């Protein structure tokens, strides 16, 4: 009985065909959606076909995509963050106000902002851990806390609703070059966030699929009790994931600040749902443990194409949100269908 008789194998579990494996990838639904959308807008909007506009579409996508990458990672880790939209503004304002108030070099403000953004993320994760509440509730709380703080602190510092311009301060030019420069490749204007977006998509995708931390994230989201039982530090993993969304909020906040020199304190609310929509279109399950970073970025691309496509087609932009809602539901249905096909 020491050696099992010739292992015949279990013929009930068969190898999947290459097509089934392809359709089993979480990002496939989003990819199909993105191609369909591109074809649709190319047919109805002549400006969409122009090569010059690729840069504009990608830029619009990147301002969603940088955050969507980390929101997708967080959702794969089984958590949810509603405070992301407001956190972008909080990060930008923190840099603008601290630099202006103390007359620092703007880089000091940038650093303070980074620490604050990471601290907000860590605080969300920690609060989640000690209260054991759903992350939906905890981050809904921090969302309102920071929304109010953005308005109130800006009123105290400047007496109005926008931060003071910082483009005459020391360090502005170098910070502008890092966070808000642009260059051209042939006829296409590339703004720097596009580069960050693509690099982050690749780096975070690598982290998820090719490192042990990725394995821990998948397990923490898929079954946190199981992950803990085999020794995965689930709490630390989740806190790190929230700090990831904090980092993305900082990067986007810095871009917005140095692009426009000044920030409106009331902006931000509403965007958190667009990041989540991008991640869900990209194949992330709300229950965690499954999803794709590339998918989240394709979701952001769908948003970018929709914003400009509707514009170029001459339709009323008021329809944008309706359109996003339809895309969300369609994407979820396609993902469900595709997943069932792949599992069968």
């Amino acid at each position, binding site marked *: 009985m020491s050696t099992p008789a010739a292992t*015949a194998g279990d013929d009930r*579990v068969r190898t999947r065909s290459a097509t089934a494996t392809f359709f089993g990838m979480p990002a496939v639904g989003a990819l199909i959606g993105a191609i369909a959308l591109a074809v649709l807008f190319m047919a109805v909007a002549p400006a969409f076909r122009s090569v010059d506009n690729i840069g504009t579409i990608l830029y619009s996508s990147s301002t969603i995509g940088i955050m969507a990458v980390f929101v997708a990672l967080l959702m794969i880790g089984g958590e949810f963050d509603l405070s992301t939209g407001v956190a972008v503004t909080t990060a930008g304002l923190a840099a603008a106000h601290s630099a202006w108030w103390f007359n620092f070099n703007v880089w000091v403000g940038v650093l303070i902002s980074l620490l604050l953004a990471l601290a907000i993320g860590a605080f969300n994760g920690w609060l989640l851990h000690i209260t054991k509440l759903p992350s939906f509730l905890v981050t809904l709380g921090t969302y309102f806390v920071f929304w109010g703080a953005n308005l109130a602190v800006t009123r105290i510092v400047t007496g109005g609703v926008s931060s003071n311009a910082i483009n005459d301060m020391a360090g502005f030019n170098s910070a502008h070059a890092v966070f808000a420069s642009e260059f051209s490749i042939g006829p296409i204007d590339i703004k720097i966030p596009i580069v960050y977006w693509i690099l982050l998509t690749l780096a975070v995708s690598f982290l998820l699929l090719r490192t042990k931390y990725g394995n*821990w994230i*998948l*397990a923490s989201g898929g*079954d946190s009790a199981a992950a803990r*039982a085999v020794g995965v530090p689930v709490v630390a993993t989740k806190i790190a994931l929230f700090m990831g969304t904090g980092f993305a909020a900082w990067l986007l906040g810095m871009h917005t600040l140095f692009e426009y020199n000044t920030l409106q304190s009331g902006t931000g609310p509403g965007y958190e749902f667009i990041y989540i929509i991008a991640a869900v279109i990209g194949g992330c399950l709300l229950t965690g443990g499954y999803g794709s970073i590339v998918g989240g970025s394709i979701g952001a691309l769908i948003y970018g194409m929709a914003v400009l496509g509707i514009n170029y087609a001459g339709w009323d932009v008021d329809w944008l949100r309706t359109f996003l809602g339809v895309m969300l539901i369609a994407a979820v249905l396609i993902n469900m269908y595709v997943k069932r096909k792949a599992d069968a």
Partner: protein
Amino acid sequence: MSTAIDHKVSGDVVPVLELDQVGKSYGNVHALRGVNISVKPGEVTCVLGDNGAGKSTLIKIIAGLHQHTEGVVRMDGEAINFSSPREAQSKGIATVYQDLALAPLMSVWRNFFLGNEMKKGFSLDIPQMKRIAGEELQKMGIVIPDLDRPVGALSGGQRQCIAIARAIYFGARVVILDEPTAALGVKQSGVVLKYVTKMRDSGLGVIFITHNPHHAYLVGNHFVILKLGRLVLDAHRDEISLDQLTAEMAGGQELAELSHELRGSEPAGSEDAAAADAVQEEIDHSLFRPDAADGK
């Protein structure tokens, strides 16, 4: 009832894990009191007990998920108190939970190496991990051609084997199996029991938690029964028969009475309804008012 606490020493084998008067209380609830168990390498120690007997608490203490509040746990003669499952694992204690601790949406190889990933440079060594996972599973007699399959798509027995194979591969010295056969069919239970003996023969100390005395007796060297958080039986295989074990497990005398009554309730052909009702009443009576039944 034999409550012999002194162990039958089987040869000169030194226990790898020893529990000495171990207890655990949650506030004023004593979930476990005065438990003595010694796990020897190359032996299967079966822990039997009904639901709520304290089996889960016992496992959680050994696995490092909970800390005991009384007594001493010794490993290789040294007192230990694990603060986390990771620490217990690093000492060579592997636990295969009833729910298997597998993430259903993750692939077979990712689950196999979860918490013990292999690296090559910055990246995971995926081909190597797949190869090892495939080989280890093959040793256990299951072949999964597509290791990228999510674990949730496999059968209960296959999942059990993944969890056991993982525990063995990662150098466990003591393996705790939490009701491995509870959710399985007859044939799959047989497969799992076969691996229990295989683990025993390769020199591992196996703690086999079950409420099925038949499964326990097939593979066990040593039997302990827990009831309401206390040890009520501690016997080596040569001290007890399967019938005795079953009887002890079910509560001895109580089972005898119950089986007598149940036999009486079997309708014997033209038995009339009134007689059946009377039997039913008697069962209800003795089940729900045990003291009254004893008084007869």
